[in-house]
């Protein structure tokens, strides 16, 4: 989230599209209710199903799964056509005026540079014209035919209300009504917020869905303001933290990158990360990359990381492919190329697509280690549970270790909520039986491996032997010690760079924040964006002052919000070019002639004059990007792409299947279905009474939603002869599930051009372990393909078939 849960009360219009907050984030959704009750805010829901959020909306429109980009680009087109644009914001705070190379273009659904063999673009034409002064050329009047604004206008001109009706199945009048409601928020004193979740991410073009809305919000001037923003409602309690700390194939904490093979040495690695400003006077904060990177290397390897050995650069692995994400790892596993696999609090047997393939892959491992508080399906994947897990146990040679770990009630530490608040919590109970903290388990594994290398020698032991491990109890590092490492510490006295006589932090003390990170090895800090969370003031994540001056919703002294306790990102954009708030009644920051004052920590230097420095300090341009250059693999603007399994062909290019640059493994491509074989569109979702596959271990939640079902329309039920509450078989090209039919008016067939598209909904909470009845999940059916940029699997749009089945009678 750019903003926070409590900030939503400041909005005028809530758009829930790609999510279902009332169902999935109920206690956060109360801030929508608050905005409706106290500000007269309105709520729009766009979703294939009439959801729980839709039931309290002011306006609802249906949309076919996987067609969101058409809706969003048509919305931008309508806003431009109807002059519903926050012009001052667009001109000054976005890259609308920047001039793009003549070679860039789009035709037949594809951008320039497409190579069908490589399934990749040559992105060199997707870039700015750089002038002789070394800066990007601009036309502040937005009239140049090659400026971003002109190109955007042209790009979205294809997306009309008629196309929305044809492709999305959204009735034209519903689209237009929503356009009018959204258009009102182009006024500088009106804001709209976007609340989305996995309904947008779990597509082969998920990242482009989100870009579409981000662009819309920029055009309306809604980023950086109270009650605005792009609000990703993260699924799990610490997904945000795990991502911030970089527990992904290609990441280093704080959104730094693991090097690739093309960066054989430190100099090469750093040379592509100089982040020279592209417009005069801009901050381009990533210029500090070396400070963050060196401090990270010192946190990892301490004295073994020196200037002479390039901070132990070769201790880091170098990637030969963009990522070894889960899809690639299970592909390799299925090919017999993975021997050991660890699952820490994660249940891939129910979470990853194409369960048959997942089972087959796990069966090829030598050793599977599962650390979890609960009995997971993954740990029991080899156990036969009849139709719910019909495996041949004796033939599965995988050895499985199931290790009992503690849960939230039994440990101390911080979780990062969706609004980037690092909230410390305290343990209240003893772990049951022999269950142990994950920190103890990880330390035990590490220390034993280290000992083996010390005793036996072995291949490249250096990064293991030299890993810093200065903990009071090496067997179980404490949360306090680990949190302090993430904040960072002075290894030598740290002086002010502007005044070398001024001591900022003495050797051995906690750094104030990342402004004190250095690239000469005098500081260590594991996760720069968290720095400030535990400085010499103590544990700022444990702060519990819930005062909220002037009731802005900021709660500045409640725990700690990264970065620097900032509550709303890009907050400088809440004020105009003179530094006056766009909406005085919703002031966030204001320029008082000498400095920025207000309710939040400004994201530009507190004394940077309003006309000089742009609000989007992380970008080399200093402004936000409507056109994203070559930074995304599938285009500088979002363009319509159908799901890999779609009931209709791409209207721009019927030959194009799915995302043309998404990675597809050969065996999976064979398992993509056509709409002739599988005519029904399906989507997955969660329910308010359950949390993934955890709460089915809890009798109360198991009683509230005891049994797996699929949701289908009355029309489809009539067509297929399916009884309300009767059993159905749903199958895709990859597997099948048996479920009770929930026949409902909440889902309706959609008329897309001359095709009537039926959609069914499949919730995800059942398996074969725990207290609830045994059932299935959507992953038995879904295709093994991910988003082209981040490899998030396409769970939200796929094809199935359905028929009545037999089973026990329902009363």
């Amino acid at each position, binding site marked *: 989230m750019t903003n926070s849960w409590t900030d939503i009360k400041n909005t005028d219009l809530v758009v829930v599209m790609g999510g279902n907050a009332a169902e999935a984030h109920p206690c956060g959704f109360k801030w929508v209710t608050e905005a409706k009750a106290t500000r007269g805010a309105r709520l729009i829901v766009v979703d294939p199903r009439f959801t729980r959020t839709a039931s309290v909306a002011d306006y609802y429109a249906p949309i076919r799964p996987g067609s969101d980009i058409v809706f969003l680009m048509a919305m931008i087109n309508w806003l431009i056509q109807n002059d519903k644009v926050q012009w001052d914001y667009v001109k000054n705070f976005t890259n609308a005026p920047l001039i793009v190379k003549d070679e860039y273009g789009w035709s037949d659904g594809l951008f320039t540079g497409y190579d069908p063999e490589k399934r990749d673009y040559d992105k060199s034409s997707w870039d700015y014209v750089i002038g002789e002064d070394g800066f990007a050329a601009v036309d502040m009047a937005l009239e140049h035919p090659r400026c971003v604004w002109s190109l955007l206008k042209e790009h979205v001109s294809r997306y009309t209300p008629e196309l929305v009706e044809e492709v999305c199945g959204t009735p034209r009048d519903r689209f237009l009504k929503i356009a009018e409601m959204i258009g009102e928020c182009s006024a500088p004193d009106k804001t709209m917020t976007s609340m989305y979740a996995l309904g947008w991410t779990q597509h082969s073009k998920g990242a482009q869905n989100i870009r579409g809305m981000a662009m819309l919000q920029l055009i309306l001037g809604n980023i950086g303001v109270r009650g605005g923003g792009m609000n990703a409602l993260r699924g799990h309690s610490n997904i945000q933290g*795990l991502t911030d700390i970089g527990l992904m194939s290609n990441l280093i904490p704080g959104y730094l990158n693991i090097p690739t*093979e093309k960066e054989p040495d430190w100099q090469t690695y750093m040379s592509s990360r100089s982040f020279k400003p592209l417009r005069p006077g801009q901050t381009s904060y990533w210029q500090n990359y070396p400070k963050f990177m060196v401090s990270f290397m010192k946190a990892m390897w301490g004295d073994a990381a020196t200037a002479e050995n390039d901070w132990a650069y070769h201790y880091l692995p170098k990637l030969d492919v963009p990522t070894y994400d889960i899809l690639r790892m299970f592909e390799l596993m299925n090919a017999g190329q993975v021997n050991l696999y660890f699952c820490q609090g994660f249940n891939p047997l129910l979470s990853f697509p194409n369960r048959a393939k997942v089972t087959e892959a796990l069966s090829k491992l030598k050793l599977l280690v599962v650390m979890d508080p609960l009995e997971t399906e993954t740990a029991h994947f080899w156990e036969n549970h009849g139709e719910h897990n019909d495996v041949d146990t004796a033939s599965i040679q995988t050895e499985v270790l199931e290790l009992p770990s503690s849960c939230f009630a039994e440990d101390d530490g911080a979780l*990062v909520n969706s609004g980037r608040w690092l909230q410390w919590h305290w343990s*209240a109970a003893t772990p049951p*039986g022999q269950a142990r903290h994950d920190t103890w388990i990880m*330390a035990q594994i590490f220390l034993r491996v280290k000992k083996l290398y010390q005793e036996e020698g072995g291949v490249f032991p250096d990064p293991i032997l030299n890993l810093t491990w200065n903990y009071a109890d090496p067997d179980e590092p404490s949360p306090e010690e680990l949190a302090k490492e993430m904040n960072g510490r002075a290894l030598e006295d740290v002086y002010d760079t502007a005044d070398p006589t001024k001591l900022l932090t003495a050797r051995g003390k906690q750094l104030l924040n990342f402004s004190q990170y250095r690239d000469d090895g005098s500081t260590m800090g594991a996760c720069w964006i968290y720095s400030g969370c535990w400085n010499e003031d103590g544990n700022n994540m444990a702060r519990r002052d819930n005062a909220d001056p002037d009731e802005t919703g900021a709660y500045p002294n409640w725990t700690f919000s990264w970065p620097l306790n900032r509550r709303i990102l890009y907050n400088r954009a809440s004020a105009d070019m003179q530094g006056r708030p766009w909406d005085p009644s919703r002031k966030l920051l204001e320029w008082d002639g000498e400095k920025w004052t207000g309710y939040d920590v400004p994201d530009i230097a507190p004394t940077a004059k309003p006309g000089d420095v742009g609000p989007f300090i992380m970008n080399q341009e200093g402004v936000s990007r409507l056109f994203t250059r070559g930074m995304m693999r599938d285009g500088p603007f979002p363009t319509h792409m159908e799901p890999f399994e779609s009931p209709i062909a791409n209207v721009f290019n019927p030959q194009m299947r799915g995302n043309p640059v998404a990675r597809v493994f050969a065996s999976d491509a064979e398992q993509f279905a056509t709409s002739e074989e599988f005519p029904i569109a399906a989507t997955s979702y969660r329910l*308010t009474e359950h949390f993934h596959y955890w709460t089915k271990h809890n009798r*109360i939640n198991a009683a509230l939603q005891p049994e797996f079902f699929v949701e289908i329309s009355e029309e489809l039920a009539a067509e297929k002869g399916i009884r309300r509450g009767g059993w159905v078989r749903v199958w895709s090209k990859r597997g099948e599930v048996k479920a009770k039919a929930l026949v409902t008016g909440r889902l309706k067939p959609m008329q897309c051009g001359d095709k009537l598209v039926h959609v069914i909904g499949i919730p995800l909470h059942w398996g074969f372990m725990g207290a609830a009845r045994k059932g299935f999940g959507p992953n038995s059916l879904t295709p093994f393909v991910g988003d082209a940029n981040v490899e998030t699997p396409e769970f939200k749009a796929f094809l199935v078939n359905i028929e009545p089945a037999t089973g026990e009678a329902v009363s």
Partner: protein
Amino acid sequence: MNIDLSRRGFLKLAGAGVAATSLGAMGFGGAEAAEQAHVRAFKLASTTETRNTCPYCSVACGIIIYSDGDLKAGEEAKVVHIEGDADHPTNRGTLCPKGAALKDFVNAETRLTTPRIRRPGAASFEEISWEEALDKIARALKDDRDANMVLTNDDGVPVNRWTTTGYLAASATTNETAWLTYKVVRSMGIVGFDNQARV
């Protein structure tokens, strides 16, 4: 704002205060002691309370956990009740049907209590000691790493990556667990590293 007085302490004080003032004011001086002697203590008054947050969704509602036993005093403690934290700015005491039932997640019958191993081809788990389990893991890691670590690519560039072992991290562990996990996994050169954010 953050008054350092636990709810338990508050209840005790309030209970005693009401009894003393009302009874005393009405002239029932002697009744006071008798009254206090037979009124059973409020059930939560004997518990330890701890601030925590709901581990399910990213709203991260504040909760208060009531335990039988005090960890800080070195005692064993068991969760007896969980409720919303009215001081928390986001949820202000409310919980959804998941958060409201959290106690039964902590105390679920299917909580794991002992390390177990399933041998190749076996039809069930058997118990194993932590020592044995951890030694087995360390041995497997070292052997696989020594056999499969890729030190250089075809061009002789040092790449130091290990692709035959993978690690899937969680979605609800603390930042601190995450960082320690990061250190261990990265120091070994594992690149098949991911967390629930991917899906």
